[in-house]
């Protein structure tokens, strides 16, 4: 009897427990929303999102420079990461030997494990001087190096592992018969990849890219170290920017010294959460059939 009771009791208890754990997301959204209400009362949603003036001490909160800054940095990161990651994962799945693939995958895991502060330091030591001393003069511009481009490059490297791991799994789901059929018709290896494998894997590839994109969109510490943090809309790759996550991370100290500032920053977190949730929900739905290995969560 005691054993049966333990079994019944544990089932009921776990049932409730699992339901509660599923509510974390809703709790998060609810808490951030309720905390954002003061700033929403101060300014309308559209003026928060689309006005430029950022003067917390005068009660003016225009998030446009930060939103545009985030879009720039994420855009640059994706422009770099997309070709590199896709070419790498195609090579690893379609061309390389299994040994090579197994030899490279720990490297990618290590890249995923490096903490964001370390990426930030590395960005300041290598990427920023590279832009200041070589890339910018090459394009005929002078800059401190702390720029959209620096942020984008560091972010691109940080999202390599996410995109590569997921797209490798996506490419593996393409049935071999399709490849064989294409090769049997006389197509070359690359033609098969281009016209059959990529076409078939397209939704999954897009989902992998979107997951990488949302990673880049939410990254704070590494970006804030290299991007210059100037609350102005950037006009070129070499201008400094101030993405949303950097804004939140940078102003934790002054949050309570100015009225409504804390609410504005939590509104920024809410904004970030909503965007990232949207991206994640869509891409996870596309990817839902794919089997994961433990390391992809690292």
């Amino acid at each position, binding site marked *: 009897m005691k*054993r049966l009771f333990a079994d019944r009791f544990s089932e009921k208890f776990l049932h409730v427990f699992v339901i509660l754990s599923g509510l974390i997301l809703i709790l998060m959204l609810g808490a951030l929303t309720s905390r954002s209400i003061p700033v929403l009362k101060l300014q309308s949603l559209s003026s928060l999102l689309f006005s430029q003036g950022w003067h917390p001490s005068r009660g003016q909160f225009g998030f446009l420079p930060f939103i545009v800054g985030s879009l720039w940095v994420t855009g640059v990161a994706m422009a770099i990461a997309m070709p590199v990651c896709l070419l*790498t994962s195609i090579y690893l799945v379609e061309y390389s030997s299994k040994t090579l693939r197994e030899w490279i995958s720990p490297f990618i895991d290590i890249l995923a494990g490096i903490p964001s502060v370390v990426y930030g330091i590395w960005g300041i030591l290598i990427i920023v001087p590279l832009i200041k001393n070589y890339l910018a003069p090459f394009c005929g511009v002078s800059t401190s190096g702390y720029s959209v481009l620096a942020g984008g490059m560091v972010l691109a490297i940080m999202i390599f592992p996410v995109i590569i791991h997921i797209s490798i799994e996506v490419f593996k789901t393409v049935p071999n018969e399709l490849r064989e059929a294409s090769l049997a018709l006389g197509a070359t290896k690359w033609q098969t990849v281009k016209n059959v494998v990529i076409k078939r894997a397209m939704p999954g590839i897009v989902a992998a890219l979107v997951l990488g994109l949302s990673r880049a969109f939410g990254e704070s510490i590494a970006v804030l170290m290299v991007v210059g943090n100037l609350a102005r809309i950037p006009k070129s790759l070499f201008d400094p920017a101030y993405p949303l996550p950097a804004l939140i*991370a940078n102003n934790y100290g002054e949050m309570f010294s100015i009225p409504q500032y804390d609410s504005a920053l939590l509104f920024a*977190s809410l904004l970030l959460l909503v965007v990232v*949730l949207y991206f994640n929900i869509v891409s996870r739905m596309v990817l839902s059939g794919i089997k994961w290995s433990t390391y992809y969560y*690292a």
Partner: protein
Amino acid sequence: MHKHAVEEIIFKVLMIASCLLIISVLLLILGTIVFKGLPYLSWSMITQAPQSGYYLGLGGGILNAILGSLYLTGGATLLAFIVSLPITLYFNVYAKKQSSLVYMVRFAFDVLWGVPSIVYGAFGFMLMLFFGMKASLLAGMITVAFLILPIMTRSMDEVIRMVPPPLLEASYALGATRFETAFKVVVRQALPGISTAVLIAFGRGIGDAASLIFTAGFTDSLPTSLFAPVATLPLTIFFQFSSPLPQVQGRAYAAALILTIIILAISIVSRFLTQKFARNIVR
């Protein structure tokens, strides 16, 4: 040469170049950290707390941050483990096949995995205010526990899913209840995977800075209480690096090297454990 053959060669070269790019970027990052950090790494760095004048380049070390990070992440990993083990056991032993609750909660965790750590930081900060706490070791622990919960749960889930169904059936046939089967058979069988999941979550937690900015605070003294602010490695790197003094900046490099070594060690140990434990399980 034929046009198709040329295209084939061009793309093959591009693909190999991308692979090489990724590997060389990784080596460059590790190389830079080792090269910059090694000269400043000393015994006193890892055995002493900061002394007065430390931030002006005088004596002391970062033991406060090393211990702080280990305590904080250790506690967070424990909290997350206590929550995620029962959840994953429910998913795989108790729940009916194709239960919509399990599907939804799994999906929720997948989505949570993508939430940026700064948002976890803001969330933890609000919880902290709600419960009237100050920035402290405990608040940091709870925030990081939330951060690593989805990683741990989903990666544990994937390994427990791999437990062969006949093993469960054998256990039921012997008269064991689901409770006994879950905790005595399934857990033992999945132990290598579970330990890997725990280590992965620990590695993710120890490197994260953004979630701790709001919640853990910072201090120069060694951690003694759950309710006092605590120093952590990522934040000590971040703060020291902002210093204009080269000596202090150098210590930031050394701290970054220490953090990277810890994370690499965790990754190697988890691979090793996976292989070692794998001998004890039924196939």
